[in-house]
């Protein structure tokens, strides 16, 4: 039969069953010893009458010797009892003390150990590992606590799986909708252009030859848009692994803005610093954000790019004074297929976020509608800045 011990009842049981009887036993021992001493002292008083005996005959002497011996024997026994009491009570108290300390240490361990374990696995749950299960043992309350914890982690695991599935479903639904829409957009002008060409070919061959180059150009343009959409989607969908190297980000930004500077006002504040980042990813990030800034700005608006450093991080900021982003939209700008551009794929900033994340950096955005938009990227500084690939 398995003994089910509740924590409080165990403590009470131990107290009543062990500590209390020990104290009672000790008390009993003291009482018995004291009563023995009292009894012996009573006998001693009787033997004190010896002094009154007149030792005349040998028989008297024998009697006196017997009585004195009896007297001495009792006194000796009293003294031995007293010594015994002192020694054994001390040993008994020590034993009780050792047992009490031992039992309470054990109880302390039985309580504190599972709690410590629980604390550790809770931390793991916090890190997202819901597969952890605890062995349900120990006191009943501890077992119940572990059982509840196991149920909780199982439920969290199920909920997480459901959430992931729901997210996937939502993503695919959104993706399908957007992709259908994006594919449909170029297909309509292509279809209309072909219909127009067919119509003119049958009815007016001269006109056909006249409109053919322009119509073919439209068709090619729309096919190019479809190809671009397929390429961007492919880039976003595939798994990307960073190939980090240490380089000066200012140099790369200077190269990027060279091609834009002829047509746009770009102010750049470089910094003498190095980062440990995938070069291609850094290029993609900067060009994407810069292109967005250009798209949002008027022709004469200034775009400011700044790189700063402190002891821990390098901060890159790209600021435009264009139309800005509303508070509602700013929450979604990094979500795939969210776009406000007429010809946008909605994958640019989602790709930027993905590239920033896989390079262990962080991206933030601030914006005021019709005022400005500022993207900030925080990159940890390279520990070995002397190496430049």
């Amino acid at each position, binding site marked *: 039969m398995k003994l089910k011990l509740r924590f409080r009842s165990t403590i009470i049981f131990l107290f009543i069953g062990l500590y209390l009887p020990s104290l009672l036993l000790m008390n009993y021992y003291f009482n018995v010893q004291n009563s023995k001493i009292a009894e012996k002292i009573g006998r001693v008083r009787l033997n004190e009458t010896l002094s009154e005996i007149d030792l005349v005959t040998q028989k008297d002497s024998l009697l006196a010797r017997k009585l004195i011996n009896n007297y001495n*024997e009792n006194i*000796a026994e009293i003294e031995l009892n007293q010594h015994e009491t*002192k020694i054994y009570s001390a*040993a008994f108290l020590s034993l009780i003390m050792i047992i009490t300390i031992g039992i309470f240490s054990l109880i302390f361990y039985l309580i504190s150990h599972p709690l410590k374990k629980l604390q550790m696995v809770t931390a793991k749950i916090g890190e997202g590992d819901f597969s952890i299960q605890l062995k349900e043992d120990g006191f009943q309350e501890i077992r119940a606590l572990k059982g509840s914890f196991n149920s909780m982690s199982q439920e969290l695991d199920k909920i997480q799986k459901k959430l992931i599935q729901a997210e996937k479903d939502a993503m695919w639904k959104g993706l399908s909708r957007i992709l259908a829409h994006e594919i449909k957009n170029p297909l309509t002008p292509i279809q209309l252009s072909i219909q127009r060409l067919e119509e003119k070919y049958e009815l007016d061959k001269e006109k056909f030859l006249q409109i053919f180059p322009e119509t073919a150009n439209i068709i090619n343009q729309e096919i190019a848009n479809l190809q671009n959409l397929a390429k961007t989607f492919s880039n976003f969908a595939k798994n990307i692994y960073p190939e980090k190297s240490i380089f000066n980000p200012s140099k790369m930004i200077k190269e990027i803005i060279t091609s834009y500077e002829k047509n746009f006002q770009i102010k750049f504040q470089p910094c003498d610093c190095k980062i440990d980042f995938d070069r291609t990813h850094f290029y993609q990030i900067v060009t994407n954000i810069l292109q967005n800034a250009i798209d949002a700005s008027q022709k004469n608006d200034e775009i400011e790019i700044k790189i700063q450093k402190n002891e821990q991080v390098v901060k890159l900021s790209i600021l435009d004074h264009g139309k800005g982003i509303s508070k509602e939209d700013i929450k979604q700008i990094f979500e795939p297929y969210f776009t406000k551009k007429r010809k946008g794929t909605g994958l640019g900033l989602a790709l930027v976020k993905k590239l920033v994340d896989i390079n262990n950096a962080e991206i933030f955005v601030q914006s005021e509608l019709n005022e400005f938009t500022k993207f900030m990227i925080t990159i940890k500084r390279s520990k070995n800045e002397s190496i430049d690939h």
Partner: protein
Amino acid sequence: MFGALSQKIITGFISLSMMLFSSYEGNEPRFADTDVSLIENNIFIQTRLENAFENDFERIFQLGKAIDIRFKIEVSSEEDLLFSETFFHTVNYDPLESAYFLELQERKETMVISSWQKLIKEISKIEFLHRLEKKKSLKINIEASLPAIQFNDEKAHDLMMLWKFKTPKKMIIIQEINET
């Protein structure tokens, strides 16, 4: 070996307990420096118990019963036991004469002593002579113990309690024996 270990644990535990919880003084018996000499194929061992009888023994020796203090001497050479001898110092008291009768078994002597101090001195002294062939090395173990005494059919009282259950022991190792 197990017996010696358990004895050490018990005496250690009692000593600790008394240090923590008891005011009992008792005695701390130990053997004093020991003289060992070989005289014409005889070994002569001379030693003395110190701090063994000063406290709480006077009444015990006067209770009218013979009290035997047991001594044991073991002599061995290179793990071979050469001999093991047990002898007693027995004290008896005559209340009418106020004198102690002391029998020293190893010395084959009997004394009548009236002084408590002299009694302690004589009872503590060991002068042991035994026949022994010449050996290259010797190991001598000496120990002393007290008996348990019983009063009026009650449970026996172990007098070792007065020594706090510590058995005084002494081991002497002699590598080269110089004949005298």
